[in-house]
């Protein structure tokens, strides 16, 4: 044998190399599997377990008779999974979905960097025919599927757009404020949807799924229990579907608002503003053109006139003046003032006629201006303001839908600020008959009328009265009581005047009926920008008021002509529970053309 040249140390060196190799790899394994184990374990879990949000059903709305007003209805969305989808079907799919050519291509292009197993939405809100087609032809459309998502569904006849409001995709700022939400979530944007968001949204659930390296869902993750979502609470509104329907119908084509309130509880029975907008357009995905159209419309459909339009209350304000004077002992029931047809204070202020010696009841009945011109000077501005405040006028009512105007009850300071220290007292003349700077919203007017009807006691006006729990058990929300502290005697006097407005020789005899006793007061808001606004407030039945209504019709002239008949129809719809109105309005067909 030939001895080979490898020397002894060389062999030992090979041996060492192998041992060192084993040691290095062993130490590395120790580092990975023991030292850094928890770090890699976490990464491994993050890799494969994905929580999927389970969006709960939003609470629905019921009216006071448990009639469903707003519900959740399914909408169909067509989706494709890029990994399985056959791109030669693009034009076919586009045709089915009714989207422009190239939509699918650009959708795929845009999402190229994401996993090819994450479904992409081609079109939301497709009709059922398209879904059926996809279902039938699924073998020829690999990777095409549809999902059902929930959107708001509304009654055909009732669409209190301004009251219900709508939901919208959450904004980045809102996302920052509340970590409950995730990007893409829908959140109440206005109206009840916004105010009661916390109640309506329910509680999100989570489903834990294991996904593979391509983010494809493999199976449920058993180690973590799924957290089921909790459905949102259903709300019960004070609304009466019949009254609301009538209010919306009567306002159609006009500019104005109707607010009906239950005098004893402050529950809003109806609230409508016209022109309005179609909530269905907002139920899932709103077309830009529609929004643009709403914003540019000069009649401002998005503006809720019921709570935002503050106009002079006109003669409806006279009732407040009367109550102030009676309570303060300035006059009593039998005190008469003289009306000669006009009143002179610096200049001449006209009345509708010469009423002669007239007491407070008749002054309300006939809406005698001269009586109240004189009365306001006897009361004084400060006392009037005190009583206005007792009725919540000049400040927000605090109703449970978000947007509301405060209106204005002028004070001494207010006039001093506008006209200087020596402001002309003549301004008070107009104030006495509800003209000039004073302004009320239809909601304030309804609330004020409701308080009169219920003799000064009620609750803060509210649209939602309570909610239903999971067991459909009704729970009322608490509301702040209101007490004006005004004497029953005073209410009896002014209410008699309001009764005669309809049933005597007053200004709204056109709505008089034999079956139901209405009471009310007409008003005309002087409008320096155009035709006067027609106003009416009233309640019924007279002996036991169940409903009080305020109606504003802009640019329509006298209160009796337009506003009073609308108020009557709304009250009838409510009191007769939507039954067709029997008999006719026994009326003086031509009431006095006064306000």
């Amino acid at each position: 044998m030939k001895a080979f040249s490898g020397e002894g140390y060389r062999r030992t060196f090979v041996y060492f190399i192998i041992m060192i190799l084993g040691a290095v790899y062993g130490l590395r394994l120790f580092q990975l599997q023991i030292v850094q184990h928890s770090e890699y374990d976490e990464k491994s879990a993050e890799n494969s377990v994905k929580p999927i949000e389970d969006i709960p059903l939003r609470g629905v709305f019921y009216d006071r008779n448990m009639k469903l007003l707003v519900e959740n209805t399914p909408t169909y969305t067509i989706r494709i999974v890029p990994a399985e989808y056959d791109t030669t079907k693009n034009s076919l799919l586009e045709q089915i979905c009714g989207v422009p050519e190239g939509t699918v291509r650009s959708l795929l292009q845009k999402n190229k960097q994401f996993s090819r197993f994450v479904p992409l939405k081609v079109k939301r809100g497709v009709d059922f025919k398209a879904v059926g087609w996809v279902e039938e032809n699924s073998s020829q459309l690999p990777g095409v599927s549809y999902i059902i998502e929930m959107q708001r569904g509304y009654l055909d006849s009732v669409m209190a757009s301004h009251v219900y409001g709508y939901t919208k995709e959450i904004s980045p700022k809102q996302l920052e404020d509340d970590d409950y939400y995730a990007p893409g979530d829908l959140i109440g944007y206005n109206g009840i949807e916004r105010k009661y968001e916390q109640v309506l949204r329910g509680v999100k659930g989570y489903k834990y799924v294991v996904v593979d390296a391509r983010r494809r869902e493999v199976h449920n993750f058993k180690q973590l229990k799924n957290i089921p979502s909790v459905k949102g609470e259903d709300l019960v509104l004070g609304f009466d579907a019949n009254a609301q329907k009538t209010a919306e119908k009567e306002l159609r084509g006009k500019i104005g608002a109707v607010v009906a309130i239950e005098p004893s509880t402050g529950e809003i029975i109806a609230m409508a503003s016209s022109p309005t907008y179609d909530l269905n357009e907002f139920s899932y995905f709103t077309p830009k053109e529609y929004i643009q159209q709403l914003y540019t419309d000069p009649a401002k459909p998005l503006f809720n006139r019921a709570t935002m339009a503050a106009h002079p209350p006109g003669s409806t304000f006279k009732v407040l003046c009367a109550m102030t004077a009676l309570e303060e002992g300035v006059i009593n029931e039998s005190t008469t003032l003289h009306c000669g047809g006009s009143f002179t204070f610096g200049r001449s202020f006209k009345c509708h006629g010469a009423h002669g010696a007239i007491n407070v009841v008749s002054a309300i009945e006939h809406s005698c201006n001269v009586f109240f011109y004189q009365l306001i000077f006897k009361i004084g501005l400060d006392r009037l303001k005190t009583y206005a405040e007792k009725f919540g006028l000049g400040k927000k009512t605090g109703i449970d839908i978000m947007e509301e105007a405060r209106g204005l009850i002028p004070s001494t300071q207010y006039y001093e600020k506008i006209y200087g220290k020596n402001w002309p007292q003549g301004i008070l003349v107009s104030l006495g008959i509800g003209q000039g700077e004073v302004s009320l919203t239809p909601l304030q007017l309804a609330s004020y009328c409701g308080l009169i009807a219920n003799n000064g006691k009620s609750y803060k006006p509210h649209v939602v009265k309570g909610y239903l729990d999971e067991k459909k058990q009704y729970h009322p929300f608490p509301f702040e009581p209101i007490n004006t502290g005004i004497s029953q005697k005073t209410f009896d006097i002014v209410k008699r005047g309001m009764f005669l407005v309809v049933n005597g020789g007053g200004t709204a005899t056109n709505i008089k009926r034999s079956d139901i006793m209405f009471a009310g007061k007409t008003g005309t808001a002087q409008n320096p920008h155009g035709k006067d606004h027609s106003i009416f407030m009233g309640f019924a039945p007279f002996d036991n008021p169940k409903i009080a209504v305020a109606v504003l019709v802009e640019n329509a002239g006298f209160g009796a002509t337009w506003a009073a008949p609308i108020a009557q129809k709304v009250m009838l719809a409510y009191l007769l529970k939507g039954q067709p109105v029997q008999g006719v309005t026994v009326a003086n067909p031509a009431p006095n053309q006064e306000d």
Partner: protein
Amino acid sequence: MSRVNYRFQDKFDLPTFLIATALTFLGLLAIYSATRSTVAEHSNYIKQAISWGVAFVIFVVVVALPIRWLRVVAWPSYALTLIGLVLVLFIGKVTGGQKCWIHLGPLSVQPSEFAKFSTVLVLATFLSRHQTDIDNMKDISVTLLLGMLPVGLIMLEPDLGSSFVFFGILLAMLYWRGVSSFGLFFVLSPGVVAISALFGTTYLIIVLVLSAVLLIFFRKDIFLSGSIFAVNLSAGFFVDNVYNILSPHQKKRIATFVDPDSDPLGAGYNSLQARIAIGSGGFWGKGFLSGNQTQLHFIPAQWTDFIFCVIGEEFGFIGSSVVVVLYIVMFIRILKVALMVKDEFYSLVIIGILSIYVGHFIINLGMAIGLLPVIGIPLPFVSYGGTSLILNMLMLAVVLNIYRSLRDFS
């Protein structure tokens, strides 16, 4: 020479065989775990078991063969594999950007796997010749040529991992044959220069300067030193061209190794997922069939090159340590055989085979545990792959044949 006294273990190195069998069995478990929920590969463990059956028959035959056949087949097998390597470039099937398979009817073979073994035989034959002078530059150059010829062809496939293994074979066999430090430098320096070039010009210049200093230190003939430096220089600049031959995914892998953060979701992704799999296994492992990295296919093709991740994740530190220890024990036992055998040819063959095993082990495991770049190469006995398993068993049979036949000389 009486044979009467010999016991079974003197004729057959049972522990080494058992280690290889244990590794194969662990491999089968891991292959089953990694493929059971796949569509195309779920029966791979059966195929692997069949391959092992074939390999075992070959193993028994080769162990029993008379020892002299090795010298006889050396040159012809070398010639055959060269032909195979040329053929694969023309009729080979492209898999994962590489052309390394030849289909012969129902069989697919990888000539590059056989090339390693036949190159070992040829190098052993050449280096053990009487007239070969290991300190003669001409003989070293012939050795290099014999060793690098298959590498040149394999780089065209391209198969980076196998090329590294050839480099290791050459180095180990020259070293074992007793090459001088200068000879070693002559062999090593172009490779070191080439690798440094991958890391950028600064590294290249530093290594070139270093090699120049060493050349001066060796005090060899100025002409020889000059030409070696020239070879180094051209190796450094040639690396760009070699780099261009590499497929894009291999380039990316090298780039990721040079700068691990360069592509966290691309080539670095596999490396990271492999580390997550092994690291999350912890001490005891997640249990057989319970590794989510494995079961959810976070690591591509892990029944082949990333098979160690399955063991690391499902059997934990215990399981992976056992694998490492099994290999180290096997290597030491093979090394001992090489030391026992007094015939230089057979000793060199064993060292060559050992270097193949060790080379695969270093590259494959180093890749899985994030110490080396992601280079596709199977883990001997464990990874799925018929050619590889049969060849590994064949080489083990050669080692044990030499053990059986030549223990007499110890």
